[in-house]
């Protein structure tokens, strides 16, 4: 009898705990717009290790958007805030971090990312009904039917085609692919290889390098022996620096043109490779393909002014002024915030379907260039289309977005320059 009473208590306790956990995890258990504290946006990316710059560029966008949202009175009577979710560029760590975030963050309105380890972490958010403004390039999401996944940047597969288009435009008809052997870097390779071949190019060697080796002389010798006119690459800064230094040494001090992916367009990469092969050679021989954004225009002015004003949360903020990912991540927060206002609810289950309402083009819609403008227009009963710092986003049926790419390099002063643009139409020609 006593045992039975004990087991009843145990069952009741378990039910109570489960109920409490469920309340904590599921935002739908409170009333639609009530917030009992700040509204939190996640920033799920890599903040440690060789790819730590990915997280910094993402959260720079988050902080900037949130500061402008708060200046405009916040959301539903509360301030907004950013919460870093460090996936450490490792699937296991990423899942643990995402699971913890979903379980512990109060008023979790949505998240930027997931980034590089999205195939592992995205299901965590999807099953918890958390809206994601993803900046992953993983091709696994090119035709996703996941409801809460939205990709605000073109996929890496499009990036691979864009690199091929750019090389072919420069009349580079033989090429080497030198990518590190991790899944993040390898995701661009299949479309790069197939697109380059389709355009008439000859991929003379496709080499996977093991990151962070102390020497890449053997790899450099193999590449040189294949006589490429151009080298496509994505690897962490130190790996590419070591590789290209060896390549230059073995090639009698001569460099070969380099076309990098978007992740090579970071200050860390430019410094490491510039130091290894000389800044002059980096300026002369390197371009990286990244989603096309213009560091100008009304929406960018709003973004940049707020970004530069927030040096307390964002160290050296000017480094992100023309960063495509910081801009689109900033846009991701604004899109979620405006969708919340459109849905009159901060809960992803309510506002997720309104993302299309504030981003898709349509007749009679008011173009807005900032959160404040959007908030005012929505309050006035208008329908809006958000035009962000990274341009206007137009999601397809798979919640993906295929935009233009720019080929970016550096000038002698170390500033980014745009060598040219690869349009979405160019990419489509190679991909179909």
């Amino acid at each position: 009898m006593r045992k039975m009473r004990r087991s009843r208590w145990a069952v009741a306790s378990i039910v109570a705990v489960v109920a409490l956990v469920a309340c904590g995890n599921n935002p739908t258990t409170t009333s639609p717009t009530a917030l009992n504290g700040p509204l939190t946006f996640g920033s799920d990316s890599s903040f440690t290790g060789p790819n730590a710059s990915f997280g910094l560029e993402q959260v720079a966008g988050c902080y900037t958007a949130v500061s402008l949202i708060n200046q405009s009175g916040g959301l539903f009577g509360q301030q907004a805030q950013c919460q870093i979710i460090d996936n450490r560029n490792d699937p296991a760590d990423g899942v643990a971090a995402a699971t913890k975030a979903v379980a512990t963050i109060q008023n979790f309105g949505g998240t930027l990312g997931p980034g590089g380890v999205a195939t592992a972490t995205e299901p965590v958010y999807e099953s918890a009904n958390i809206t994601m403004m993803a900046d992953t390039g993983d091709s696994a999401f090119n035709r996703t039917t996941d409801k809460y996944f939205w990709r605000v940047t073109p996929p890496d597969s499009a990036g691979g085609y864009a690199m091929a288009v750019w090389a072919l435009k420069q009349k580079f008809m033989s090429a080497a692919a030198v990518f590190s052997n991790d899944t993040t870097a390898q995701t661009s390779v299949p479309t790069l290889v197939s697109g380059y071949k389709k355009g008439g190019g000859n991929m003379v060697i496709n080499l996977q390098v093991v990151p962070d080796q102390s020497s890449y002389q053997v790899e450099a010798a193999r590449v040189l022996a294949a006589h490429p006119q151009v080298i496509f690459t994505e690897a962490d800064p130190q790996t590419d620096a070591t590789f290209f230094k060896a390549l230059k040494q073995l090639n009698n001090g001569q460099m070969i043109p380099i076309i990098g992916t978007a992740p090579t367009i970071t200050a860390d990469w430019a410094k490491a490779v510039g130091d290894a092969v000389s800044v002059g050679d980096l300026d002369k021989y390197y371009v990286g393909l990244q989603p096309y954004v213009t560091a100008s225009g009304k929406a960018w002015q709003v973004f940049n002014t707020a970004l530069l004003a927030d040096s307390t949360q964002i160290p050296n903020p000017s480094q992100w002024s023309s960063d495509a990912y910081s801009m689109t991540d900033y846009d991701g927060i604004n899109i979620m915030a405006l969708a919340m206002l459109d849905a009159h609810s901060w809960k992803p289950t309510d506002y997720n379907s309104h993302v299309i309402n504030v981003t898709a083009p349509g007749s009679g819609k008011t173009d807005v260039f900032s959160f404040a403008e959007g908030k005012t227009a929505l309050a006035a009963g208008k329908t809006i289309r958000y035009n962000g710092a990274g341009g206007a986003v137009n999601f397809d049926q798979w919640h993906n977005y295929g935009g233009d790419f720019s080929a970016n390099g550096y000038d002698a002063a170390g500033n980014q320059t745009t060598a040219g643009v690869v349009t979405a139409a160019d990419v489509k020609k190679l991909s179909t």
Partner: protein
Amino acid sequence: MSLLALFIGFGLVTSAVLAIASVGFTLQYAVTNVLNLAYGEVMTVGALTAYVINKRGGSIWIGLVAGALSAAIVSLLLNRFIFGPFARRGLKLFGMVIVTIAVSLIMSNGLLIIAGASTFSYNFDAGPTFTGLGMILTTEQVVVIVIAIVAMIAVRLLLTRTKLGRAMRATSTDESLARACGIPIRRVTDAAWLISGALCGIAGVVLGMSVTGWGVFTGQGLLITIVAAAVVGGIGQPYGAMLGALLLGIVTSLVAGYFDPAYRDISAFVILVLFLLFRPKGILADVVAQREVVA
């Protein structure tokens, strides 16, 4: 451009670094019977010491000497305060390996806290590139090979021409008998740790010289290849370690070149396993056995 010659050239550079490190590793094991898996961290101590001196404007050659000294001192201190006390308590080989793994973890994380996760490189004139026999080697790589040759000659002279060397060989063969013959075992052991540490420090610095960038885990990353070279040569056999280093350096380079760079470390493991299976006493086993018979 002959790829075979190029790959052999790169392999020789790797062999040079490996030879210095594995001779130090095996020499210390032969005399003290401690399989020191914190050896990679001691290498990093040497490399970092040289880096600090080099960054403050000191020549890399002064850095090399300082790196050797600092690693020798750290090595001696490790024995005096950690490995020695455990050995006196009767801890056997396996237990001591666990202790060295613990020391390795403590040291690597300590170095990470002190030096950070940055990548380091030395400032020195790279000099011209040398081309010959189909090989292309930079000045620093040629220097690394020369340093290795000098170090190997020095080790040979030490072991064969000096009283200390003979005492070390005697201790290595039979410690009890050596003690009975009046050899001061503790001093000989200290000398072995110092010499092993110095070679380890030199290996750390020349490794740093031969690559573009290195970090606090670079030494640890090379450990398995060092151990493999020592095992291939016959653990406790300095001359065998030299041959083991030569074999491993060239084979891993050829495997990376002709198959896949990802197989570089795997090939070192495969060689290690094959030797343990079919020739556990190492490449010079027959020579050593013959000498024992003659003696």
